[in-house]
């Protein structure tokens, strides 16, 4: 009896194990080869033979591969082994791991708000001097402030992206004689022209993104607050020094509402809530809408065979300022690296990640940009990214982090999104802004 049972359980298990073994067999054993690496840039970090550093973040797949590649030489030369674990659950799990006493050595945080929460919980160790020196040298003051909580500097930024691009079809513009708008008014005029003469709506709209449905619209609102009210106002807004429902913010909601809640501009207003955000801009390719507001990373969404260039299938211009001669003001995103351990190997790695060497390594591998001023813009993998790096490095640009990522989780990760959904669904700007203000945590 016993043996029959064991055999019957054993066979499928053995079969599964055999399949697994077969799969493993396809990939050979690998070994690191340091002989032809130029170790000169990494000598100053010292050697850490046998030390292990674990690092975790939301970055997965191809981008995770590039991340691993970007520090492979560093690891080989210093002798440490770096174990990166990427999971989309990182943001939800990191607090549990930190509180449970078992976090990774380093975490890559896409949201300064969450970063500050963890810092306030007392889980981070302050950044070592080498990191702070790098940040002072290579980053703008505003970027440093996102890694600073209550006066203590905890971590340096990693990569960046620029929000507030408007994607369009260069060939359509050329054919119909449209000009790239230089002010928000011109943009509205352009949209009206497209609406009047075209057989399609000017704006594409898509806001669905699982639990974060509505976030593409928060980017719109932030862009308008920054452009209409200026950077000081923007800072006061995300820090809650002025209430969320301040008249200036409501004004921005109304301005965006003139576009996104206008049937002439987007067609069926609420349809966007059901369309995955990644698919929203694609109709530009078949000419069923002309303009799509989305971040620089949208470049990766167009698919194979679509060229992203000023003379290609699609390209993007920055959402223009209110007046043509206003300084360039953009919202952006990025990651901050926080440390849960002060082991020497961890600190050396942290310093490396904040250096221009790493930033150039990573930008050269393609697909991303960094706000590190030591980056050589010509290394960027596309015209758009090159242009983005130049904007980030221009000392006159006004750059602000995505406000929803800076606000406390209760607002930036919850009520702001929910408010947007209600707002698109027909609620008034004032009432939605009031609701979001009421949800701002008191402590």
């Amino acid at each position: 009896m016993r043996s029959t049972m064991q055999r019957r359980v054993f066979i499928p298990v053995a079969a599964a194990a055999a399949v697994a073994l077969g799969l493993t067999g396809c990939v050979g054993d690998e070994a690191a080869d340091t002989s032809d690496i130029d170790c000169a840039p990494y000598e100053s970090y010292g050697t850490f033979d046998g030390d292990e550093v674990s690092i975790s973040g939301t970055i997965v797949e191809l981008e995770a591969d590039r991340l691993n590649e970007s520090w492979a030489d560093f690891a080989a030369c210093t002798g440490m082994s770096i174990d990166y674990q990427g999971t989309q659950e990182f943001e939800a799990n990191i607090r549990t791991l930190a509180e449970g006493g078992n976090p990774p050595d380093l975490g890559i945080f896409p949201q300064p708000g969450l970063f500050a929460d963890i810092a306030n919980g007392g889980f981070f160790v302050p950044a070592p001097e080498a990191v702070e020196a790098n940040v002072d040298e290579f980053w703008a003051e505003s970027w440093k402030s996102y890694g600073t909580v209550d006066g203590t500097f905890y971590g340096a930024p990693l990569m960046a992206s620029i929000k507030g691009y408007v994607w369009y079809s260069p060939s359509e513009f050329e054919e119909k004689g449209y000009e790239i708008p230089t002010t928000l008014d011109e943009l509205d005029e352009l949209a009206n022209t497209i609406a009047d003469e075209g057989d399609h709506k000017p704006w594409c709209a898509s806001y669905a993104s699982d639990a974060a449905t509505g976030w593409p619209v928060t980017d719109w609102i932030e862009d308008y607050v920054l452009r209409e009210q200026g950077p000081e106002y923007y800072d006061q807004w995300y820090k809650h020094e002025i209430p969320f429902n301040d008249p200036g913010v409501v004004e921005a909601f109304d301005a965006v509402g003139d576009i996104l809640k206008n049937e002439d501009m987007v067609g069926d207003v609420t349809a966007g809530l059901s369309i995955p955000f990644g698919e929203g801009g694609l109709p530009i390719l078949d000419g069923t809408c002309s303009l799509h507001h989305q971040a620089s990373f949208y470049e990766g969404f167009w698919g194979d065979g679509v060229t992203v260039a000023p003379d290609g299938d699609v390209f993007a211009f920055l959402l223009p300022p209110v007046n043509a001669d206003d300084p360039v003001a953009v919202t952006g995103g990025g990651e901050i690296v926080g440390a849960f351990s002060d082991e020497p190997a961890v600190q050396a790695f942290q310093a490396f990640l904040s250096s221009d060497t790493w930033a150039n390594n990573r930008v050269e591998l393609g697909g991303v940009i960094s706000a590190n001023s030591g980056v050589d813009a010509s290394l960027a993998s596309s015209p758009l990214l090159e242009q983005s790096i130049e904007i980030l490095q221009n000392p006159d640009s006004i750059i602000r982090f995505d406000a929803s990522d800076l606000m406390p989780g209760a607002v930036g990760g919850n009520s702001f999104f929910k408010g947007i959904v209600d707002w698109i669904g027909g609620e008034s700007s004032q009432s939605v802004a009031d609701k979001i203000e009421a949800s701002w945590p008191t402590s």
Partner: protein
Amino acid sequence: MRTVDLIEKIVQVGLGLAVFAAVIGLILFLADKAPKKAKDVVQLVVFLAPAIILLAIGLIYPAIRTSILAFSNKAGDLIGLDNFAWIFTQPDAVRVVINTLIWVVCVPLISTIVGLSYAIFIDRSRGEKFFKALVFMPMAISFVGAGIIWRFLYDYRPAEREQIGLLNQIVIWLGGEPVKWLQTEPINTFLLIIVMIWIQTGFAMVVLSASIKGIPTEQVEAAQLDGTNAWQRFVNVTLPGIRSSIVVVVTTISIATLKVFDIVRTMTAGNFDTSVIANEMYTQAFRANEPGRGAALALVLFVLVLPIVIYNVRVLRKQKEIR
């Protein structure tokens, strides 16, 4: 992965299983050898202690901690009932509670009825295993997979574009206009409930089928010889034979339903009046960084389970009396 790593992993599993078997075997053996007088007590302890100790560490202690958290703010100070006051002053609090009640009534009821009928209808039929596997399959698909499957089904495209959602295509075949299903209230809540029913029916079916097979064959045969029809046999023989299993299935599905948030979260994120308490709990505790509010919502869930618990206590008492 190198071959060495693979062997190491197999060794780890083998070692784990061996140590576990050795420990269990040893304590059962020692309990047998206990002095006669204390034997019953020792045996009771041996049978219960492993489970109780693990539960105390992994669930009871956290449950107590959660209860304390429910009365605390973020800084850890006790603040009385503020978190509960917050829950019930939310603009859509009533809606969330009503939705939760709709879920906990619909899902167990329909899953159990469908699962039971299916189990009976295919019992002993040719291809039973295959038929069972069909309904069981949704259970084996992860929530992520289930989310994709059903989002596909409910997908909306404007009328001028080709639909990729089956439900809207059917509407169009019938001459209608495509509907934004997940935004259309109140049908969206029921569409989400269907997903949970789709998953849980497999559970009900498997458990009830195992239970049906436990009914002594001669009882069924005797009823057959008496010339009763299928419905009479079901009411007089099958139903009494599996009553306690039905209670177990309904209870389990009810609790699972109260706890489920993945479906709501991935499909509507609680927007469009579809939120349930568990989804609010998850959002507060893990996205909004308000563990106190999350814990308070967990306690509210616990209160909702109490009627189910009480009902089970009564069933249990009856069983003991019969025995």
